[in-house]
Every structure is written in C-alpha cells, then in structure tokens.
C-alpha cells in the first residue's frame, strides 16, 4: 500500500525518536494502568479494613505515579508532534523539490492547481493521521495488552468477558464504518457538485444576470443542495450511532463484570477492590479500541492523499541537466533549430516535426499558425522547458541539452502567453531575472515596454503587486512581464503571443522602442496579428506541427497559401465590407 510505503520512507530518519516515543507512550500507558491496581489496594486493604494510615501511604504513591505518568504523557505528546510535523515538513520539501525540477510537460500533465493541492491539502491529511497515531493511538496496543495482563492478574476467571466484549465492539464499529465510508465518498462528490455550481455562478455572474437566469440558477442549485443534504443526513445519522454504541457496549460490559464478579466474590475467589480495578481496566481497554477506530475512519482519506503524493514523487522530470555541461556560447546571440521534432511520450502524433531555421543577432523570427499548430511547444523547446524528441535546438551554437542550465536560463528572456507576476513590488518583479539591476535599468525597461506611465501612477517602483498581479489590468501585467524580460538583456528574447493583450497603438510603440536593445540578440515572436509580425526578418508558418513556410512577409504572401490566407482573413475584411 502506498500509504505504508510513504510512512516507512519518510519516518525512517525519525526511527530513533519513534522508538523513544513508543517507550514513552508504553511507560505512560503502563503507569496509567497501574493506578487502578493501587486503587484496588486502597479499597481492599485500606477502606474495607479501616486502615487510614495505609490509605494515606497508598494515596501518596498514587499521586507520585499520576505525576510521573503526566510527565511521560506530555513528553510523549511533544515528541509525537515533533515527529509528525517533521514528517510533514520533509514530504513537503521533497514534493516541492520534485515539482520545481519538473519540465513544463510534467507540470501540464499534473496541472498546477492539482500540484498545489497535493503539496498542501494532501500532505496535511497524511500528517494528521501521523499526529493522531503518534499522540493518541500509539498507546492503545500497550493499554490493551497491559490492561489484559493486569486484568488477568486481578482475576483470570473474569477475563473471558474481555475476550467477548472487545470483538463485539470491534465488529459493531467495523460494520458502522464500512457503511459510512461509501457515504463519505458520495458526500464528497455531491459537495463538489455544490461547489461547482456556486463556482459557475460566481464566475459567470455577468452572464447569469445578463440573461436573467437567476431563477434558473436557483433551481439548479436547489437540486445539488438537496442531493448533498440527503447524503449528509444519511452519513450524519450513521455517525450518530457511533458514540451511543460504544458507550452501550462499555456500560453493559461493566454491568456484566459486576454480575459475574458478585458470584466470584461469593466464592471468595475475588475481592471487592479487584472488582473495581477490573471495571477500570475494562473501560480503559474499550476506550483504547475506540481511539483506534477514529484513526480507521480517517485512514481512507489519508490513503487517497498518499496515492496522490506518491504519484508526484514518482514522476521523473523529462528535462535532466547535462553530465558535462558546456559553460560558454560559441556564437552568442544566435538561435538555430535543426530538424526538430517533438511529441509527448505515449502519444501517436508528433506535435512538431521537421522544424529548421536559424536566427542571428539582431534578427527577429516571427511564428504564426492557428491554434494547436505547435507554436507554444516550439517556444518551450527553445527555453528548454521541454526536450526535443529528435533534432536539436542550438543556442549560441551549443545544443541546449549540453548547456549548463544556469547559463541557458540566464541568457533567455521569456514572456509567456499568460503573464505571471509575483507578489511583492514592481521592482522585485522586474529584478526577478537580474537581482543586481539598478533603478535606471528598471525605468529604461519600463519605458520601452510602455509601462513607465502607469507604474508612475501606481506610485513608482515600490508599488505593491498582489499575487498573480491581480491588482493591475491584463494589459499592464503583460507590459510588466515584458519589462521583466527586458531587464535581463538576454541573448534570446521569446515573446509568446505577448502583445495580444495590448491595443494596437501600444503594441506598435513598444515594438519600435525595443528595436535598439535587441541589436545583439535574436528575437522570437509568436503572434496572431499580422501587423505585429509584418516587419520580422523571417516568418515561420506552422500548420499542424509542420513548417509550411519560412521567409519574409512579401515572399510568403506569394509562396505560402496558408500565410496568404491568414493575411487575407485579417486584411480583406475592411475592403470587403
């Protein structure tokens, strides 16, 4: 089972502490069990015989034992918490280290939101199980076994009662839980449905209102809400039986102890004190069993979570660093693709095939093509977020797979399709790729990316940026994202559809301003708008992952039907209308 393997692997560094914990819990439980024994003697030898002196001395012993027990118990709690929390921390570290080394391929496959949930919620689930086990359950076996031995010691002839009632409790709880777990699963699904409808209503609030569909939405919600309530009721009512059931078994067993105990006392085979001690052992043992079942209830969720964690830990990154990295470019500022093909493992069709082009310093290569033509995949290959299936990507004359990743990723300026800003300030975002950049460098880049005006309006470089950059508009985010790449002054600029969120005028100004600083670098531009790419030195036309044209705007209009069609679709309209 994945859960067990995960526990074993990540608890291993703490096996000494765990052993110590088991000892602490054992001693703690034994002492707790010893108390009823003393109590029995207080009653038999003290109270019944009217020996006040003995009551005082035994009472003193009980106090001492109780104190020591508490010290051990609290020490066990601290140690248990330490182990469980370290366990959680280590798994989170391992998961994070894994995910950050993933290539874009693995991130796409597992998806970012899912990775986030795994790193947080799922780890929390498993950690909770470990906490509960360490602090509450570990003592249970000691209590059960020790309690049994002591009970036997008090009176062996009564022990069959224990043998009978413990399984009854176990079976009753087992039946209840086995019926509860499927209900929980259904409940989870229905809860997801409720949340799904609410999520849709919030994200589509303008559409809902625009079409006056509030009553319809309310009906839709009422249905999923009823479904959820129904299952919650079933589960809640099953749960309702749990506690009374345990108490019933415990209490009826206690009564049985007195019933049969009386016979033994009558036969002088047992003392009253023993009877009372026996009662206490009994209760302790049954309570320990109940504690253990709590963990059983929690286990299914932890199992699912551990599977999701293990999946990440077992996913290998498809982009591994070179064994003998090349640490210098041969021809700085150049980019070349040689007969590149790329396909996802397991998929029949290649996403890209037969792509070859070269781009020298100061040159711009534009990439056009319809959705799914492979433009973003190509960009990811150049940035080595993927590796090619065959062929080679050469940056500065060196195969990117042989380049030192530090060098590679320090010489690229990527502006992704969806701009992503980090929480912090404008300055911290701009310095993301070049921590030592001065303020003038930052302002220069902001000027070029047409972002200086609004950054000034926001209050300058120290203006706050919220997580994901949600406090600036989409176009502003895009311009900041461009500025961030410009600050690096890299060898290769990659703009993945980065200008589309800008209006045409801003787009044009930005491209004009960029020209001087890209004189030493190669520039790769993915775009939909013809006006954006028209001035490129060469245009690569992609269709269905194939390179169907490469050349200047004018040349392609003659030679490439696909390109001509794209141009026509954007240009013919004004005249036709």
């Amino acid at each position: 089972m994945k859960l067990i393997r995960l526990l074993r692997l990540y608890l291993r560094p703490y096996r000494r502490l765990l052993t110590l914990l088991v000892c602490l819990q054992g001693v703690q439980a034994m002492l707790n069990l010893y108390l009823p024994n003393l109590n029995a003697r207080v009653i038999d030898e003290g109270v019944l015989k009217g020996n006040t002196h003995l009551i005082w001395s035994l009472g003193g012993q009980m106090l001492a034992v109780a104190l020591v027990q508490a010290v051990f118990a609290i020490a066990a709690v601290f140690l248990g918490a330490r182990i469980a929390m370290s366990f959680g921390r280590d798994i989170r570290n391992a998961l994070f280290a894994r995910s950050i080394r993933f290539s874009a391929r693995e991130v796409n496959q597992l998806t970012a939101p899912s990775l986030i949930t795994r790193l947080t919620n799922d780890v929390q689930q498993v950690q909770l199980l470990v906490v509960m086990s360490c602090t509450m359950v570990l003592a249970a076996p000691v209590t059960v076994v020790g309690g049994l031995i002591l009970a036997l010691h008090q009176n062996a002839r009564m022990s069959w009662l224990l043998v009978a009632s413990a399984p009854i409790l176990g079976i009753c709880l087992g039946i209840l839980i086995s019926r509860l777990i499927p209900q929980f699963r259904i409940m989870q699904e229905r809860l997801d449905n409720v949340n799904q409808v609410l999520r849709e209503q919030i994200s589509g609030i303008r559409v809902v209102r625009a079409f006056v569909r509030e009553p319809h939405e309310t009906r839709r919600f009422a249905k999923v809400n009823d479904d959820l309530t129904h299952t919650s009721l079933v589960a809640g009512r099953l749960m309702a039986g749990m506690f009374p059931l345990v108490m019933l078994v415990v209490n009826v067993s206690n009564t049985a102890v007195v019933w049969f105990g009386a016979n033994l006392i009558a036969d002088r085979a047992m003392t009253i004190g023993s009877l009372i001690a026996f009662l206490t052992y009994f209760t302790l043992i049954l309570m320990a069993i109940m504690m253990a079942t709590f963990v059983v209830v929690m286990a299914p969720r932890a199992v699912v979570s551990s599977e999701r964690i293990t999946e990440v830990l077992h996913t290998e990154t498809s982009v591994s660093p070179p064994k003998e990295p090349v640490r210098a470019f041969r021809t700085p500022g150049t980019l070349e693709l040689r007969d590149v093909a790329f396909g996802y493992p397991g998929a029949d069709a290649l996403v890209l095939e037969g792509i070859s082009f070269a781009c020298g310093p100061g040159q711009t290569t534009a990439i056009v093509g319809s959705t799914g033509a492979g433009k973003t995949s190509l960009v990811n290959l150049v940035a080595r977020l993927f590796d090619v299936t065959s062929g080679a990507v050469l940056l500065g004359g060196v195969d990117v797979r042989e380049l030192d990743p530090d060098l590679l990723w320090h010489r690229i300026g990527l502006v992704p399709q969806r701009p992503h800003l980090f929480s912090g300030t404008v300055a911290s975002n701009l310095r993301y790729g070049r921590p030592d950049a001065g303020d003038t460098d930052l302002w220069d880049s902001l000027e070029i990316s047409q972002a200086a005006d609004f950054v000034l309006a926001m209050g300058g470089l120290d203006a706050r940026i919220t997580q994901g950059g949600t406090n600036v508009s989409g176009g502003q985010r895009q311009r900041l994202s461009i500025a961030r790449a410009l600050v690096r002054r890299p060898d290769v600029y990659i703009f993945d559809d980065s200008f589309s969120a800008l209006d045409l005028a801003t787009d044009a100004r930005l491209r004009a301003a960029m020209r001087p600083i890209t004189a030493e670098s190669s520039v790769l531009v993915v775009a939909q708008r013809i006006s954006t790419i028209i001035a490129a030195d060469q245009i690569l036309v992609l269709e269905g992952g194939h390179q169907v044209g490469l050349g200047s705007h004018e040349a392609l209009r003659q030679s490439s039907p696909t390109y001509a069609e794209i141009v026509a679709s954007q240009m013919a309209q004004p005249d036709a209308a």
Partner: protein
Amino acid sequence: MSTETRPETKESTSAPPPASGPMGRGGPGSFGMPLERSKDFGGTLRRLTIRLLPQWYRFVAVVVLSITSVTLTVLGPKLLGDGTNVIVKGLFHGGPGAIDFSKLHQILFLVVLLYLGAGTAQYIQAFTLAGVVQRTMQRLRSDVEDKLNRVPLQYVDRSGRGEILSRVTNDIDNLAQSLQQTMSQMLTNVFMLVGTVVMMFVISPVLAVVAIVTIPVSTFIIRFIAARARVRFTAQWDNTGLLNGLVEETLTGHAIVKTFGREREVEAEFQRTNNDLFEASYSAQSISSSIQPSMILVGNLNFVAIAVIGGLKVASHSLSIGGVQAFIQYSRQFAQPLSFLASMANLFQSGLASAERVFEFLDAEEFVPDAVGAVGPDRAKGRVVFDHVSFSYDPDRPLITDLSLVAEPGQTVAIVGPTGAGKTTLVNLIMRFYDVDSGAITLDGQDISKMPRSVLRSNIGMVLQDTWLFAGSIRDNIAYGNLDASEEQILAAAQAAYVDRFVHGLSHGYDTVVDDEGTAVSAGEKQLLTIARAFVANPCILILDEATSSVDTRTEVLIQNAMEALRAERTSFVIAHRLSTVRNADVILVMEDGQIVEVGHHTDLLRRDGAYARLYNAQFTGAAVEVT
C-alpha cells in the same frame, strides 16, 4: 474538494479599481482552512442560534432526549454502587453465602435497561440533531446562493471571485462539519456535567465539593494552555498561508521561475517558510495536545483525593463502600466532559469563525431593489440614449463625466481606445451592473434605472470576450440564452454562429458535455457558443466584445462573420478591436483614461486628426497592408 480558483481579473470584464487594502482575507492561503477565530463570538453564536430556531421543535426534542439520556446514564453508577453495597452487605453479615443475589440481579438488570434506554435516547438525539444541522446548512447554502443574486457586481469585482467562492464553499463546509461534530457532544457533555454534579452531591456532599474543586483547576489549566496554543495556532495558519501562497505562485509561474534561473532561490525560500511552518505547528500541536494529559493528571489527583477521603469516611462508617465506588465512577465521568469540551472548543471556534465569514457575506450591501410596479418594454425598439451620464467606481477618480450619446435602433456604436481606457464601464452601465451616479440612460425613452432589471436585461444580449460555459451539454449551454427555445431554434442559432460545424466533429454532438475549464472545445469555439447563445436569446440590443487574443485567425473570421450576422437589425455596442467594425460603425466612441475624447464617424474622426487618427495610424506603422 478544492479545485483552486484564483480571482482572475480580465481586463475585458472588470475594470474597477484594485481591491482596497491588502489581499482579501481568505485569499490564496486558505485551502479550506479558515485562518482566524471569530471576532464577535457572542453575536455570531446568537445568529447561528436564530438560524436553528425554525426547527425549534426538533431542537426541543433534542434537548429533552439529551436530558433523558444523561439522566439515565448518570443513574447507572449509583445503581451499580448499590449493587456493590449488596455484595458488601452480604460479606459483612455472615460471609459470601449471605449475598442477596436476587436483589443484586434485579439491580443489575435495571442498570442494563437504563443503559439501553440512555443509548437509545442518545442515538435518537444525535440522529435528530444531524437533521437539524443538515437542514440548517441546506438553508444557509440556499440563502447564500440567493444572496449571490442580490449583491451588486461591485461587491464581486471588489472582493474577488476566489474570496467569495471560499466563503460560500469552504466556510460553509467547515461550519457544517464542526456543528455536526460538536453539537451533539457539547449538549450531552454539558448536561452530563450537571447531572454528575447533582449525583455526586446526592451521594456525598463533602466528596462532591472535593470533586468540584477540579472544575476551576481544570478551567484554569485549559485556559492557560489554550491561551498559549492560540498564539501558536495563529502563527501556524499564517505560515500555512505564506507557504500555500508561495507554492501557488511558483507553480503557476513555473516557466518564469525556471527560465529566469530562480529555482535555487525559490527552493531555499520554500524550505525557510516550510521550516517556520514546522516550528509553529510543532509548538501549536504539542501545547494544545498537552491539555489531555493534564486533564488526566487532574482526574487522577481527584481520584486519589476521593479515595483517601472516601476511605476515611468509610472507615468512620459515614459512607458505604458502594458509595465510594459510585463516586469514583462519577468523578471519572466528570473529568471526561471537561476535557471533551476543551477539545471541542477549538473545533467549535473555527466553525464560528467560518459562520462569521458567511454572515458577513449575507450582510453585504444589496443593490437597490426594482421599484414596485416598475415596468419596461417587453420588446424594445432599441433606441439607447446616454443623457449627461457621470459615473465613477471610486469617488476620488471620476471616470465618466457628462457623457451624452444617442444610438438609434439598428445602429452600431463602436467603442475604441487604448487598453484600460474604461471601455467595459459603458457595458456595465447599460446592463445596469452598476448604476450611474448622475444623469440617465434611457431605452426607448424610458429611464432604465426605473425598469425592472430583468426586463431591461431581457432586451439585451451580451457576448463577452471572457466566455462562460457551465458544466452541461452544448445544447443546454446554447439554450441558456432562452430556456423556452425549441430544438429548431437551437439548431438555427448553432448554424448562424458556426457552432454546428464543429459540433459534428465531436463524439457526442450536441450532447457533448463541456465546462468552463474543459478542453473539449477551444477558446474560439467557446466564443462561437456564446454567440449562439445570444442568437437564441434574440435581443434587440447587443453588447459585443471583440476578442483580441488566443483565437486563431480562421476561427476569428468565423467569429467575425457570426457577430456581424448577429448585429443585423439590432442596436449594438461593440468594444472594437477590428478595423472593419470601426469603419462601418454608425458612431465611434474614442475613450482615453475613462473619458470619451471623441465621438463621430470614421471619416470625420480621421479628418479631425486627433486621438482616433493616432490610434488608427498606429496599427499600421511600417506596413503597407492598407494598400491591399
């Protein structure tokens, strides 16, 4: 659960000023875990109780059942003690043979019956309570959903979608769970405490006083520990929030982190935060878990005290041995509810904090309801007039001042301007997502603020760049525009919007299930679907937002054509990015910084050589495409 939804602010749909203050409270950090305790404990508890009131008869039943169950349970040890006394009496008076077994068995039989009764009562209590809780949660959920229909859009735009979503889902879940888990136990334990105290006084007032001394002692210990734990728990949630934020940020910006060479820094930062989290959660967990052993210690001390004093009393014949036995059981029973209540307190607190957040949402200001008896045209002709309209999201930043404009039926109004100029604000006003500050917008001469919103909006069709599909079949998604639409109407709309073409390529045709995040249809196809929706609705006024990105050229042509067909014979407001739209528009509004700087027709505006001319020329810098 927990599909992460971040508040996304696409420029096309929401252009209000950034949310005031720091990120919303529930922000990215709260994966279903409300971060704080309630601020107004009493008030929230009262409101929660009021919500339970409609089911007061069930609640009364629950209380009666709790008392019954507790009374029966509490009598148990006393009777068992009587049983012991019977044995002891036999032992003292003439040896074991003298034990009155028939009396003993009678007592024990009664005890079993008591326990059975108590168990049954408790089961019915918890069973009923589950109903009360779940029904209350059902009501609360539907109230929240209802509320969603009544909050002004401003509220949604300001708070962020993720924040609201977290309130209406995570918080209600958390509340339901904590109520379900604590209510039954809390009731039982409180009554149990009372019942046990009463029984202890019945058996021996002196011993009872000894036992009761443990209450203040326990309370003191619990409060002492809890106060220390609280600080740590807060630190734990703070660090959890930080960590979650960091993870989310890193993974959604994965490509940037990698290509900007920040892997090592980010990993080091993660380990630092992770370690802080470890320290905080370690101390929070260990301190709060100390409550239980401490309570056991108090219980044991109490036990010793009772044994000693009880023994002395038995020796002096002022108490029976059965009495001591019963008392010991009571004192155990007595410590139990205390530690139970202590451990429940945390859970309950967190539930209340969630309840408070939900109530905050329910208290949010609502838009002004439609005037009583307000009427509007069922089918307007479509003459839209802006009469000296002023509006701003933020009083300090006037956005639209004194705008006047006439759109005759069937005309097209193109709204153009640079990014962030406030183009969507006009849409918000026409749809009455926001109300104007002064002036008026009229439809067919009637002030729209005096019309029922539903009537106004039924007259308007809206196709936004930010498409929205709900989880359902393609057919249902189209029919969303008109729930009464016949199959023919849906098909006709699908054909007009070029949806029909790609639907035939899908495995289940019109029954293919799509959702907003799904990949079954592309971004461009989503656009076409929303256009089909507008066709089905057949409105007289249209609001269109032309896509700027993420749609390939060929689909874009289809979208263009579909939008053009849709515009025919309808008054249209188009946020235009395309030259063809602008050129053919009857009126062009040029916006800059929230102001309408120019109004007019294409050729007039070009001749004026102002903002529009600049905008128009800018897109053809360095290119001679125009000549084509």
